[in-house]
């Protein structure tokens, strides 16, 4: 079987023109409308992350906070140990042992110097406890069964725990804690990104199932289109073209029309979504749709891949079935 590019293109063009002349492509347009229109609509749902950035970014961006985490994915993190202890004259407290103490770390924690002259073991107390202990410079601390005297070098407000500022402390039973320095905006963004991705994964699965459910419709539409050009196909077979060649030409002709119909539906639905949103926002303050081009492109390509498969099955069945021809 030898294919000549020029001849093949001419035959495919002829088939496409015949289909268009008989308006038979409309059924392909209908069969693809549900998966493609809903792809655009659902992947244009307003993003909560963009909403956050639009309304709260100025208020949240410059607020630096210290957050504890089980991993070091948010902002700049330092590994730390967390143990229970007892502060003389106060009672049980939680102690945080940072593994590495740097100048940057001290600045990020927003520690305030107490004015005590510390040379040995230094700690930073929560401001309330420091006031409760009557601005003392030396406190007794019992932790991990050992008792020691510590100098109150700093106070802080970010953590309601005593921060032990000793470099290279021994490993603790639970040292899988990280002290992360980041902005308030970043924490909120992380939460909303998680929420958005869980919504989008549901949308992905929903659209994929819709695509699978639409494929029998695409198959029926392909058969209907081929039935409309059966006289042309009969002529092609009579002039000596093989079944395989006819199958291939039909597949290409159908697929070209499906891609064109798909692109038309994509642009139409995008226009409708954005026009409707603009019209709505003039009436009431509404959320603006987020155009997720990557996801739309990925799902559209998936639709085109599946439609190629269906077109090829329909064309093969059509070319081999004498009853249909």
């Amino acid at each position, binding site marked *: 079987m030898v294919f000549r590019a020029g001849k093949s293109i001419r035959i495919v063009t002829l088939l496409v023109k015949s289909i268009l002349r008989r308006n038979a492509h409309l059924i392909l347009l209908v069969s693809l*409308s549900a*998966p493609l229109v809903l792809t655009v609509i659902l992947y244009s749902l307003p993003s909560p992350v963009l909403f956050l950035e639009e309304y709260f970014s100025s208020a949240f961006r410059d607020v630096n906070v210290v957050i504890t985490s089980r991993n070091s994915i948010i902002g700049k993190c330092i590994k730390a140990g*967390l143990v229970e202890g007892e502060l003389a004259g106060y009672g049980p407290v939680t102690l945080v042992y940072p593994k590495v103490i740097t100048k940057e770390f001290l600045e990020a924690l927003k520690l305030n110097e107490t004015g005590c002259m510390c040379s040995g073991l230094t700690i930073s107390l929560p401001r309330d406890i420091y006031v409760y202990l009557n601005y003392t410079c030396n406190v007794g601390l019992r932790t991990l069964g050992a008792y020691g005297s510590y100098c109150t070098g700093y106070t802080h407000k970010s953590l309601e725990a005593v921060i032990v500022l000793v470099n290279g402390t021994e490993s603790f039973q639970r040292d899988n804690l990280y002290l992360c320095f980041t902005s*308030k905006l970043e924490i909120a963004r992380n939460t909303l990104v998680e929420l958005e991705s*869980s919504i989008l994964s549901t949308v992905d699965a*929903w659209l994929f199932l819709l695509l699978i459910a639409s494929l029998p*419709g695409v198959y029926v539409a392909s058969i209907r289109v081929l039935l409309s050009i059966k006289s042309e196909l009969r002529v092609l077979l009579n002039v000596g073209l093989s079944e395989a060649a006819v199958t291939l030409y039909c597949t290409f002709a159908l697929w070209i029309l499906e891609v064109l119909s798909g692109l038309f539906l994509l642009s139409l639905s995008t226009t409708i979504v954005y026009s409707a949103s603009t019209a709505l926002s003039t009436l009431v303050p509404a959320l603006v749709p987020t155009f997720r081009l990557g996801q739309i492109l990925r799902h559209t390509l998936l639709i085109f891949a599946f439609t190629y498969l269906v077109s090829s099955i329909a064309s093969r069945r059509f070319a081999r079935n004498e009853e249909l021809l």
Partner: protein
Amino acid sequence: MRSYFKVYILMVRKRCALIVFPAVVLLVLSVLSAYALSSIRTLYYADKTLLGLGDSVVVSGAAISPFTSLVNSEELSRLLAGVKGVEVEYLFLTLAYLYDKPVVIHGVEEGVKTGCAHVGVDLVKSLHINVGEAIPVHSPFSDSTYFFEVCGLVEGPALLLNYEDAIKIRGVKPGYYTLAVIRAENREVLEEVYKALGLEPAKQKILSRALLVLVRKGEKISVEAYENIIEGYLYRLGIYRDFVFYFAYAMVIISALSTPIIGVGLVVLLRREVYVLRLLGLSCRGVFLVLLTTVVVATLFSYALAQVIAISGLLPGTRVLGYYISPSMSVEDLICVHFVHLVMCITGAYIGLTRHAK
């Protein structure tokens, strides 16, 4: 009529695909549409899942969520001072980060000691927390991290703290709560409650389930009433319930846009039989009746299977702040989407037959 029925039975016996093909396609399309519809419906009744409120009149402050609202108990008691036969329950709910995970915090006045936390079993599993250890809770309101000892476990994904600890995280004074649940003895008492709160007579449609939002304007307090509790918060974000439901119904209709092809497909599938029947003298209307029966039977099969799927709870839900919200497909939703698909399918069969006749 009997002859049509005989023809129909004969065709079904010969071709099982006649029922299986449309039934399967309709089942998938209908379940997907009903799932989308019920997911949105479930979102608007999430207060039952998230807050366990049930049918009650809830008083909230003006806020974008129930976790950021504030109600002063003294002020509300003062407003309701003259009303007898009413019981007010105050709830304290807020949002915080347990490690870096957002969690819902319930502040309770009894049952949890100060400095203690009762952690939801779902959080225990996901964050590998043990009883007796210290857990960090970061407040997005005061930007401070507080440490609590895990003293016990509770059902669900929330964190139970003592009221004093919870208000410390929220950064408010004692006497403030997030929501107040009002339970009136009867409708007359409820009417008095609405009057006492200052709801305009025109808006006094007495509802057994409502959200009353108290908005302070200087010295005056005005009241806004919402039939749906979640709607009272979402509309402040520019999400309107009517538009959300129009969107859901539009999705159902769009997903049914391709359904006429199923009807056309039936004619393609039966083109030989239709040709023979027409030759034998069966009218075009008769053939359409046969196709109509096929579509109706396939829709009934699809509906029955969809009900089985709805009851079995096979469909996945979504997690909101750790709470699992499973969409419950209602009978009304399933009937509505099947009806839409049935109409589209019949239209398709009619178009297919007309073209075939030509």
